[in-house]
């Protein structure tokens, strides 16, 4: 079974630029999560999707971050404009259903904002 796929693996941008990350969850997984992991810290949930609907985006900085999962499969997370403090690893995870406890993580995208 293929795992969660993410791209790109690394991205370097200047502050105030825009960036987008892509995630393809494990096939058949209805629930998709985006996390931000700042160096030296545990992952922090940004947004949770159930199929193509948002379940929880309470910790998403909506003035600059947006995410979509239009067809309920793959998802895109965008930052516009980026700030220095957005430098982090952005992790995507998926689970079969919203009530399934175990989340399976992708390798992450490491973002560096200069």
């Amino acid at each position, binding site marked *: 079974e293929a795992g969660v796929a993410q791209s790109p693996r690394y991205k370097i941008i200047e502050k105030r630029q825009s960036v987008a990350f892509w995630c393809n969850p494990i096939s058949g997984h209805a629930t998709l999560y985006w996390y931000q992991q700042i160096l030296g810290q545990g992952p922090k949930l940004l947004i949770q999707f159930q199929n193509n609907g948002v379940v929880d985006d309470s910790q998403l900085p909506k003035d600059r971050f947006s995410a979509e999962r239009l067809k309920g499969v793959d998802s895109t997370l965008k930052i516009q404009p980026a700030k220095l403090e957005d430098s982090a690893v952005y992790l995507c995870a998926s689970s079969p259903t919203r009530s399934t*406890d175990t989340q399976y993580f992708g390798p992450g995208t490491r973002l560096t904002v200069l």
Partner: protein
Amino acid sequence: GESVGLHLPTLSVQEGDNSIINCAYSNSASDYFIWYKQESGKGPQFIIDIRSNMDKRQGQRVTVLLNKTVKHLSLQIAATQPGDSAVYFCAEKTGNAGNMLTFGGGTRLMVKP
């Protein structure tokens, strides 16, 4: 790739010894707990989980202990191997919060050959 946890607490053990990694969780209403292992440049990998109606659960070479009285979780790794070197995170879930996981700060385990 760049290390995940440059400023994390570190536990250094000799190969073959047992390791104990501790975690204090914050929410007394949390009903599910997970330990994840994260190697450099990779996403977190599920190790073992436990529900709040249990106080101990064993897997292959790993045991998780839950003490709800003091809100403490521990991960025991038997016969630690070099491949166990990684950052370990505990995470908690509260039943009325969907499937939202709250992660702890992590501990780096270094295994000396």
